[in-house]
């Protein structure tokens, strides 16, 4: 360990989102520092490349492509969160993760609920040509 324990009591500190360490200085290992950004960038390029490859390929069963794209996108978002925004599940970042979890809950409710309700409305809707006939 380095001898840079300046604050003395870093245990009780929270971490600001975007900081790899509680005292605001990026460390050289793990998910912080230039190395962390390099690892994150490499993983992101890999996942993006796979996404573009899967989208254009005829090698895999066609109906599975959207699912694969979705999984790759979620994985890349996770990579960005961990290596670029430094939202980790470590003890000092628990508040950031809780806020993220709540945000994800709302996003899933919003998108899932919209698709669900609009799908049913679409299903039960009178077809457009019938409406035209009724208006005559």
């Amino acid at each position: 360990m380095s001898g840079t324990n300046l604050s003395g009591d870093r245990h009780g500190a929270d971490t600001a989102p975007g900081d790899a360490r509680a005292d605001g200085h990026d460390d050289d290992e793990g998910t912080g520092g230039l190395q962390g950004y390099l690892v994150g960038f490499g993983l992101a390029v890999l996942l993006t490349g796979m996404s573009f490859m899967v989208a254009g390929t005829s090698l895999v069963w066609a109906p599975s492509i959207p699912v694969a794209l979705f999984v790759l996108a979620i994985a890349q978002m996770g990579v960005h969160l961990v290596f670029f925004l430094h939202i980790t599940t470590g003890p000092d970042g628990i508040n950031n993760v809780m806020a993220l979890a709540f945000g994800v809950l709302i996003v899933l409710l919003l998108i899932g609920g919209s698709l669900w309700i609009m799908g049913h409305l679409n299903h039960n809707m009178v077809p457009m040509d019938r409406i035209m006939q009724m208006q005559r």
Partner: protein
Amino acid sequence: MNRPGWRQMGLWAGLASAAGLVAAAAFRPGHATAVPGGPVGDLLEDEPASRGPLRSKPDPNHLGHRAGAGNRQHNTEHGERGTASKRIIAGYGFWIFLLSDIIMFAAFFAAYAVLSGETAGGPAGKDLFDLKVTAVETGCLLLSSFACGVASIGAQTRRGAWFYGGMAATLVLGTVFLGLEVWEFAGLVARDAGPGRSAFLSAFFALVGCHGLHVGVGLLWLTTMMAQVWAKGYRPDILRRMLCFSLFWHALDIIWVAVFTIVYLMGSGA
């Protein structure tokens, strides 16, 4: 995109996000040993040398705020630690804002997902999108995210070459991204595929345009950050703003991942 496909994907999204959390947790062990203040590091090294045997075992999740140890005089209503530093408060508040921004984007995504099939006899995604342009845009934004990370390290460690170089690279790459997007939009409007053509195109322009607007605002913010550091130096308040800016820029990249996957890749494949 057919509707059963969307429902399937919702299911997979849940599974994948669970897998992502597990992956994030898996990165932690190496991290904990690397951080000097981490629980493992403290137990191994600091305790015998500097603190003596009186120190109690830290609880890693701070559930009990380590009652009975540490500085008694700081024992305020915020627990033993006192109030958090301004940097943590600013970053956390901005993180909450970013999450609300992401929720707003989720509403645009929901509208797009519902309306993506409603082309009103007009062109669909696969007739309009050029994946090469999307690939270049994605590369620009990804590289700019990395450059922004370099710039934030430069700001933290007060290395001017890293800070100004990273910020300038971010500015150039972001401008190229925005230029490509404006060029793409102009091409669509010229081909009579503007936002008024169909519900699908309205949703498309609203979603992608909103992201582009965010990038434009981010570029303005970026130039003011460079000017502030140039004029005032690496003051703590300037560094807090820089933290918020880098969070903003990385969050825009996350939203772009969803945009290029759902709008461009799925739209051109359907």
